[in-house]
């Protein structure tokens, strides 16, 4: 790695040498034609010059340390893939600075791509009609991986996952799970410093998901690869990520450890009560506002309780709350007010 180049381009306040990615106030705008409705509208659009600017990413700053696995989350259309495209050098930011492995990705796209790997959930990047091993060999040549490193990597793959059944199978004949697995293996083959995984477990069955998660974990542990993971599956996040970043409407709305996430809105727990008629009642309790024991006691006065369960709130529920909260804050300026209403709705 060319450390001196990194120093030269070093951004302010990034003393940590191990930063894999640094983003400073990055914005990305797109200009699109304002389309009108209906048949008349489409005829009018033929001559219209009515453009509008859409901000896909607004003033995002981010630092990602080497070896981290980061969950990059957000609702559909939040700007996740635009950010990834900027990090991989495919898109140029409208303003702000990005450094990936000490390089400005869009200026040195080719050089940058030597040190990164990318997987897009449902789009295979492998040669469709070739057996996987031939794709690997081509990638070895393209990335100029030394023979020894290549063999070692294959050995590592063998120790982490059973690759023999897919190695000699053409990609077009593979199941979705096998294809995703192949794509992930291909992305790690040249031992990149950073791997971007865009919804790697989308559409996969439970056992395949588990397989892929443990593979990613293993590779990260073994090679200290930084992994940027975008996903809608909180199982991925729980299994892999220590830190998560959430963006919505192009803005970063959360960036912290996964433990902090659970106390983002207070300290939530789910209380489940079984009534005499064997029905379960479920209710989310904010422990900063009310005491669990109080709730149980109150309930007990109303009716007989057969059983009680107390559950930690799941990541999924917190994320859902954050999305809802963010959506609501757009409608009203009084955030706290809305947050309370939302809470009532959940209860």
């Amino acid at each position: 790695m060319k450390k001196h180049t990194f120093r030269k381009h070093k951004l302010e306040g990034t003393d940590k040498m191990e930063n894999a990615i640094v983003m400073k106030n990055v914005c990305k705008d797109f200009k699109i034609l304002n389309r009108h409705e209906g048949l008349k509208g489409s005829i009018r659009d033929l001559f219209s010059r009515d453009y509008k600017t859409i901000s896909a990413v607004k003033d995002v700053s981010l630092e990602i340390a080497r070896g981290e696995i980061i969950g990059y989350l957000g609702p559909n259309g939040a700007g996740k893939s635009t950010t990834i495209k900027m990090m991989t050098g495919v898109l140029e930011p409208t303003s702000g600075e990005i450094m990936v492995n000490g390089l400005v990705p869009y200026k040195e796209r080719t050089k940058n791509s030597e040190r990164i790997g990318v997987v897009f959930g449902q789009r295979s990047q492998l040669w469709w009609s070739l057996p996987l091993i031939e794709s690997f060999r081509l990638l070895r040549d393209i990335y100029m991986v030394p023979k020894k490193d290549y063999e070692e990597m294959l050995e590592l793959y063998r120790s982490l996952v059973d690759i023999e059944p897919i190695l000699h199978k053409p990609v077009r004949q593979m199941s979705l799970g096998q294809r995703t697995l192949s794509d992930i293996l291909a992305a790690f083959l040249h031992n990149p410093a950073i791997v971007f995984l865009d919804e790697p477990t989308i559409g996969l069955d439970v056992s395949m998901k588990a397989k892929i998660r443990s593979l990613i974990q293993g590779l990260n542990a073994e090679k200290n690869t930084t992994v940027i993971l975008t996903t809608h599956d909180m199982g991925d996040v729980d299994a892999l990520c220590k830190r998560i970043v959430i963006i919505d409407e192009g803005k970063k709305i959360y960036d912290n450890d996964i433990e902090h996430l659970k106390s983002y809105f207070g300290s939530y727990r789910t209380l489940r009560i079984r009534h005499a008629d064997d029905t379960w009642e479920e209710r989310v309790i904010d422990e900063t506002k009310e005491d669990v024991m109080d709730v149980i006691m109150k309930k007990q006065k109303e009716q007989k309780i057969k059983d009680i369960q107390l559950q930690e709130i799941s990541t999924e529920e917190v994320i859902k709350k954050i999305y809802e909260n963010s959506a609501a804050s757009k409608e009203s300026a009084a955030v706290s007010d809305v947050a309370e209403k939302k809470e009532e709705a959940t209860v």
Partner: protein
Amino acid sequence: MSDTTMTKPKARRGFGFYVRIYRKILVQDLKSKMSYRADFVISTIGMIMTNLSGFVTFLILFKNFPSINGWDYYHMLFLYGFSLIALTPVQCFFDNNWNLRFQVQSGDFIKYCFRPINVFFYFMSEVFDVKGLGQLAFGIGTLVYAWVHIGIPVTPLVIAKLVLFLLTASLFMIAIMNAAAATCFWIVGSGYVMVIMFRFKDFAKYPSNIFHGVFRILFTFVIPIAFVAYYPSLAILESENVPVLTWCAPALGVLFFYLSYKFWMLGVSKYDFTGS
């Protein structure tokens, strides 16, 4: 891992690298194509049919009209064969251009941007079109037949000239198709441009002195179909009075190819990959 990166040589991925990669992809590709024999047979039949129909059109024309602009049957046939051979490289090596607009529209094109190799090369290397070879055979047959009837002497110099000018001619068609395909980066629904440019090639087999005025300039320097067969073939057909443009053809071919490549790459860098 930083150690392995550091030991890699610096200046790399030169011409030799790309030839090696292309050869490897090609070998693998051909291997897998062998397993789809029905596909191969149908494509080959298709190719033969196209050429046959082109030839029938040609015959029907000459049955009604004995010559075109002073070009007789055998000279026209020579031009025809020459154009078929010159159109082979674009068919064999650059056929993936036809898929470009679909991949750009669906967003799948982005995958070509993640590798540390030239995007244009990577994209084109994915498809080698075997059926172009059928066209090549047809072209060679026609050319040889016309060659014998015209009675052009066979000397090493003439053969060298033939090869050089065939290569030159092929560059122009490649350039036209690159540029036509690349319009899809800016214009949604520009697929028709490719279709029509591809049909322009049918006019390459006629002597370009049929064009007059502004259109002669247009078809020589803007959409250079005059260079796909006419000007380069004059280097063989004419012993004297070879037009200056014929001698300029090799340099112009390289220039056109380079410009079309730059245009294609500009499209890649300007495209915002929103389709997904």
